[in-house]
């Protein structure tokens, strides 16, 4: 035993980790360096923010239930659309997948923990301060950011103190994401069990490796963009002010250089989850593993060169529009490879339809639809008609909700037994799936019609002709929201062991990977001696 004098950090306890002393109660969660603890905190934080962002969505839908202004005033409505976007993207979906990464990557790679366990804790504990800043911004004079989650100037340069709070929240979220990504990338590159070559890694690890790269490359750019807004607001710079030689459109270029890869930062880990679950319930290995890896990398690279397809209507030379249109359409190729591989994985498989598989199938159908509407929007002449209409809203909610969120649900049902040691109630899980699926489509499918008919987004009132489908959409939204409270109930029942069915080490007979070689629930410390992968 080495003695480390004056070392406050180390308990310096014995070799048997089962008797390792660690703080209990609240202190355990505040100071933990355990990837499973941190993963759980990420997931609970994500769900909390999902509810907060969800309430904002329901306020939006309540206002839009009928034409005219009846529930909130327009300023508050704008704050709701902006905060809903920011909170769902940065507070709910991204932390959910970081939570899965924290829980599962060390288990999948055969590592004892993440590469930087203390920094891992900091990555998580930066999220609550960012959430505090965002929520506080609603209660200051002038209210929170009301210019949309994209925070375009000149509106954001003119707004009140709430915008400053939002800018610093974004900075802190960025710091959290960068540290988390460096941790994940280092864990994947350096902590794999002996014998696990890169091309033997589970797809979830592959997608996170590439996602982490995207985050490290783009988050600092977002930080730069909001810093320019901050200095334009307070220090007299003119980055986004034409009178001083700047250009508000420049912000859009910088923002979307971050913003488009951000779409794949959210989507790629979801692809990874689906690539784990479809083979498990088809009882066949993933079809075309290598092409999956290359397709993921291709999507990531292409995501850096298509950003201005978000800006067709804000002013661009014709040649630029042509380039961004064709480059964007190119993304359909690797994405098509992925969808083909998923279908081929199921082809002649011995398929059973447990809840994780149902959510994956829901993902497959609905995400592909969202991809197709994306292809429609990539066409410049069409986008000029549809830009900032509800068609766009429908499109990205098919990608974000039916894509990323459904795959997050699938992941909770698939890995939940490993975390809790108990099976969830299969019947309730299936009800959650069908309830979510139907409510989702009732909410968002009509928005395609609304958008094609010309209803603009981010406006609290609308023409009478849009009334019927808006009422339908609002009813669907409340049904979808309720379904997620039901989901919370299912998860709490699973944690409490109310299903009465203990989870075996490998509850899914088609599942593969090191995570199923450890008992359920996974012990506090796993793989202290790395397993050997043949």
């Amino acid at each position, binding site marked *: 035993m*080495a003695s*480390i004098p004056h*070392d406050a*950090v*180390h308990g310096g306890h014995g070799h*048997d*980790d089962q008797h*390792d002393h*660690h*703080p209990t109660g609240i202190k355990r969660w*505040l*100071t933990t*360096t355990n990837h499973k603890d941190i993963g759980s905190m990420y997931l609970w934080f994500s769900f909390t923010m999902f509810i907060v962002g969800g309430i904002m969505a329901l306020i939006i839908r309540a206002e839009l239930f009928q034409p005219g202004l009846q529930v909130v005033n327009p300023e508050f409505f704008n704050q709701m659309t902006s905060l809903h976007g920011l909170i769902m993207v940065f507070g709910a979906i991204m932390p959910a997948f970081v939570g899965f990464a924290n829980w599962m990557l060390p288990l999948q790679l055969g590592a*004892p923990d993440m*590469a930087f*366990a*203390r920094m891992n*804790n*900091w990555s998580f*504990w*930066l999220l*609550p*301060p960012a959430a*505090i*800043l965002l929520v506080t911004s609603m209660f200051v004079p002038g209210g929170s950011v009301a210019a949309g989650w994209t925070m375009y100037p000149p509106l954001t340069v003119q707004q009140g*103190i709430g915008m*400053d*709070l939002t800018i*610093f929240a974004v900075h*802190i979220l960025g*710091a959290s994401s*960068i540290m988390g*990504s*460096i*941790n994940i990338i*280092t864990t994947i*590159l*350096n*902590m794999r069990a002996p014998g696990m070559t890169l091309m033997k890694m589970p797809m979830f690890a592959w997608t996170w490796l590439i996602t982490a790269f995207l985050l*490290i*490359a*783009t988050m*600092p*750019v977002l*930080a730069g963009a909001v810093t320019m807004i*901050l200095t334009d607001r307070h220090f*007299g*710079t003119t*980055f986004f*002010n*034409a009178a*001083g*030689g700047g*250009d508000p459109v420049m912000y859009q*270029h*910088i923002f979307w*250089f971050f913003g488009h890869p951000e779409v794949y930062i959210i989507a790629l880990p979801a692809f990874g989850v689906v690539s784990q679950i479809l083979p498990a319930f088809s009882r066949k290995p993933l079809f075309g593993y290598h092409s999956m890896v290359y397709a993921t990398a291709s999507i990531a690279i292409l995501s850096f060169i298509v950003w201005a397809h978000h800006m067709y209507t804000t002013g661009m030379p014709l040649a630029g529009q042509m380039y961004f249109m064709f480059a964007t359409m190119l993304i359909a190729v690797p994405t098509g490879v992925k969808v083909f591989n998923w279908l081929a994985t199921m082809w002649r498989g011995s398929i059973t339809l447990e809840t994780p598989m149902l959510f994956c199938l829901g993902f497959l159908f609905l995400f592909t639809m969202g991809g197709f509407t994306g292809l429609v929007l990539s066409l410049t002449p069409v986008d000029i008609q549809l830009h900032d209409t509800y068609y766009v809203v429908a499109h990205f909610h098919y990608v974000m909700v039916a894509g990323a969120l459904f795959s997050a649900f699938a992941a909770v049902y698939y890995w939940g037994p490993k975390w809790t040691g108990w099976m969830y109630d299969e019947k309730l899980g299936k009800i959650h799936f069908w309830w979510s699926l139907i409510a989702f489509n009732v909410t968002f499918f009509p928005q395609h019609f609304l958008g094609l008919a010309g209803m603009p987004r981010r406006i609290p009132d609308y023409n009478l002709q849009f009334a019927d489908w808006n009422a339908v959409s609002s009813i669907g939204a409340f049904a979808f929201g309720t379904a997620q409270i039901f989901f919370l109930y299912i998860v709490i029942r699973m944690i409490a062991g109310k299903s009465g069915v203990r989870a075996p080490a490998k509850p899914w007979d088609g599942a593969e990977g090191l995570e199923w070689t450890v008992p359920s629930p996974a012990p506090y*410390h796993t793989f*202290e001696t*790395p397993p050997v992968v043949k």
Partner: protein
Amino acid sequence: MSASTHDTPGKYFVPQPSHWPLVGSAALLTLAFGAVGSMNSLSWGLPVLAVGFGILLVMLFGWFGAVVRESEGRLYGKNVDTSFRWSMSWFIFSEVMFFAAFFGALGYARLRSVPDLANGVTSMLWPDFAGTWPTAGPHLKEVFSPMGAWGIPAINTALLLTSGVTLTIAHHALIAGKRSKLITWLAATIALGVVFLGLQIYEYIHAYSALNLKLSTGIFGSTFFMLTGFHGFHVTVGAIMLAVILARSMRGHFDAQHHFAFEAAAWYWHFVDVVWLGLFVVVYML
């Protein structure tokens, strides 16, 4: 977990629970509120900012102190060393991307927004705007002179390039086990960095007083001061890193095999150096 208590470092190192991350979060939250308050001229702004900064300093000393003790206690094996190398590389990459945003803004302003304001569809707004660089924009009507490249900036370039050489000499001295040579050349490197910063402060004063070049001097002032300012901030951070390494060297830390902290600080210093070369060409010369 047990790896941390073996005589020889285990393959992995998993630290015990630590309160430093939480302290760091408290620091950033306080700093954020303090910054918002002081930027909006609220009376509590600056005090809160100062408190946040204080908490941050406590966290930095405490956390890095713990890491230094663990490193000197030889708790980090080869695997941890590789992890540090990966993480520092990716951190520097993230810094590169941060600067890329500001270089991109400069490029966009020079190649697109300023020419468009003079010749594009928006030229009708300010018909007498020539659109030549440098400019404070069509409406600000600021008269200023840009910073010439061949005075202080050229000297600063020489200083930073030289500091890269002195740092490498220090590194070789460390590998060769020549402690006093290491300390001398490391101190020389820091001195060059400090002189660089001093000259930059002089340059800024000159810009404000003699050239009428300010942060608010349109797009030229914005890009000039934000790019050189963020670079200067990074030089400051790099110099602090090197100063810590110097203090540790004087206490006998590091040996020929075991000195990644030195290398990490050196990588960072070289990164700052390369950014300056980009700045010198794009901001000062072109």
